[in-house]
């Protein structure tokens, strides 16, 4: 089965052509240079209305890169939520129109649930491993920090999530407090490699309560207080130590909760996805944990950790197979129950 995936829940418009739920024939994101050039070539602003300009070129590029036409498509999967309502509606309206015009089955997908499905994606000719069910997924990005348990491809429950800031947001805002520029997460990752991670004892919120929820707002406040109490701008050496110590606190929380979730559910495989899964220290700590505990660890390629439509098509494939079809009355779900 060949599925066309469409994603427009927040910043980027994305489309992907996916074969049999796993093989990525194409995956196009509007922030890619080749797409920019087609609709103005400016850095994309966060704007629902920009999705309107991007969606046709993005879908055309996805089809042509895959060497397919609309006649080859067997079904359509589109992000239904959660996200910014104006942005979601553009992908949804386009998907519904296409479904009606071509008589194709349509399914609506949860964006956060889809992030976990990035672990099943493989390039053509590549034989990537995939997690076995049941598994635990930790989705950590700018918008979300959520632990999910998957019983099978389409049955999940939420085990825990952030109560305030997301992990990606903590990286971004702390980088701003330290004057590190954009993208902040990458800057902290780089500086932290030469810093002392034990230099400053930042808090590990909700660490003792056995809770699977996260909290990163207090960590941001601790950094704010530390910076405000300095008599001048931090030295390069101090920036390295602050970055390393802060990063360790975030990674500690993420890895600890993931392990608790695995123990609590008895799952043997862990998927880590979302933009934060590109952080080198996080990846190293996850690998150590997986080895010590004898667990399977699946971290998608960085291009499938950030927002993309291949993951939407992958989850959509399973929903289509199970007959979970949406009608033309499908509406956007800006907030999704349980998240």
């Amino acid at each position, binding site marked *: 089965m060949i599925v066309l995936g469409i994603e427009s829940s*927040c910043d980027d418009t994305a489309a992907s052509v996916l074969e049999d739920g796993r093989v990525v024939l194409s995956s196009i994101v509007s922030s890619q240079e080749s797409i920019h050039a087609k609709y103005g070539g400016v850095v994309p*602003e*966060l*704007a*629902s*209305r*920009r999705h309107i300009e991007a969606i046709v070129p993005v879908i055309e590029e996805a089809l042509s890169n895959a060497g397919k036409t609309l006649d080859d498509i067997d079904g359509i999967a589109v992000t239904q939520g*959660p*996200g*910014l*309502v*104006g942005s979601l509606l553009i992908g949804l309206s386009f998907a519904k129109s296409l479904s009606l015009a071509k008589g194709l089955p349509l399914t609506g997908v949860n964006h956060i649930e889809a992030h976990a499905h990035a672990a099943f994606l493989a390039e053509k000719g590549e034989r990537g491993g995939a997690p076995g069910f049941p598994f635990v997924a930790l989705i950590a*990005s*700018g*918008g*979300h920090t959520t632990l999910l348990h998957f019983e099978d491809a389409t049955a999940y429950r939420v085990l825990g*999530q*952030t*109560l*305030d*800031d*997301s992990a*990606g*947001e903590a990286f*971004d*805002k702390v980088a*701003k*407090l330290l004057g590190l520029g954009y993208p902040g997460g990458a800057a902290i990752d780089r500086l932290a490699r030469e810093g002392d991670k034990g230099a400053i004892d930042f808090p590990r919120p909700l660490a003792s309560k056995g809770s699977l929820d996260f909290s990163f*707002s207090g960590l*941001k*406040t601790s950094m*704010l*207080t530390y910076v*405000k109490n300095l008599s001048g701008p931090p030295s390069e050496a101090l920036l390295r130590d602050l970055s390393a110590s802060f990063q360790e606190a975030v990674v500690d929380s993420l890895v600890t909760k993931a392990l608790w979730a695995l123990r609590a559910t008895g799952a043997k495989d862990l998927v880590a996805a979302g933009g934060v899964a590109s952080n080198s220290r996080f990846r190293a700590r996850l690998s150590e944990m997986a080895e010590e505990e004898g667990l399977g660890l699946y971290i998608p390629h960085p291009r499938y950790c950030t927002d993309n439509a291949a993951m939407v098509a992958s989850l959509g494939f399973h929903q289509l197979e199970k007959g979970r079809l949406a009608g033309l009355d499908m509406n956007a779900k*800006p*907030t999704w129950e349980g998240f």
Partner: protein
Amino acid sequence: MEETVKYLTSSPEETERLGEGLSEKLRAGDCVALTGELGGGKTSFARGMARGLGSKGGVKSPSFTILNIYEGGRLPLYHMDLYRIMGQEEFLFAGLDEFIHGNGAAVIEWAERAPSLLRDCRITVSFRYVSDTEREIEVRIKDDAGKHEKPVL
């Protein structure tokens, strides 16, 4: 006419209670502009507003998701965050103005990014870092019908 009252809070919980107090004054169509630096307590204040209105769900920072909607209370609350929005034009292009002055109340973090909000919102709340735990919070309520309202929360 405009009335201003300054508060000093000494914990995130206290900031939250101040937001809860403000929620009692909210009516449909109101917009509350939150301004001030990172870590000032804006999300805690908005959390208090959502609780005060009677919404049961969690309140997370919308810095990356841009808009969270809390329903099930006395009024729907549209919790926006312009942290990643670079100016007035982008605010309008993102379609966020559609959630203001509607059937619910709107609370907008980093409202200074879209200067029209400071003019249009009936209530403005500014946050300032004082010490590790203390924040100075200034509440301004515009008098819109010749009636003075003391912003005591």
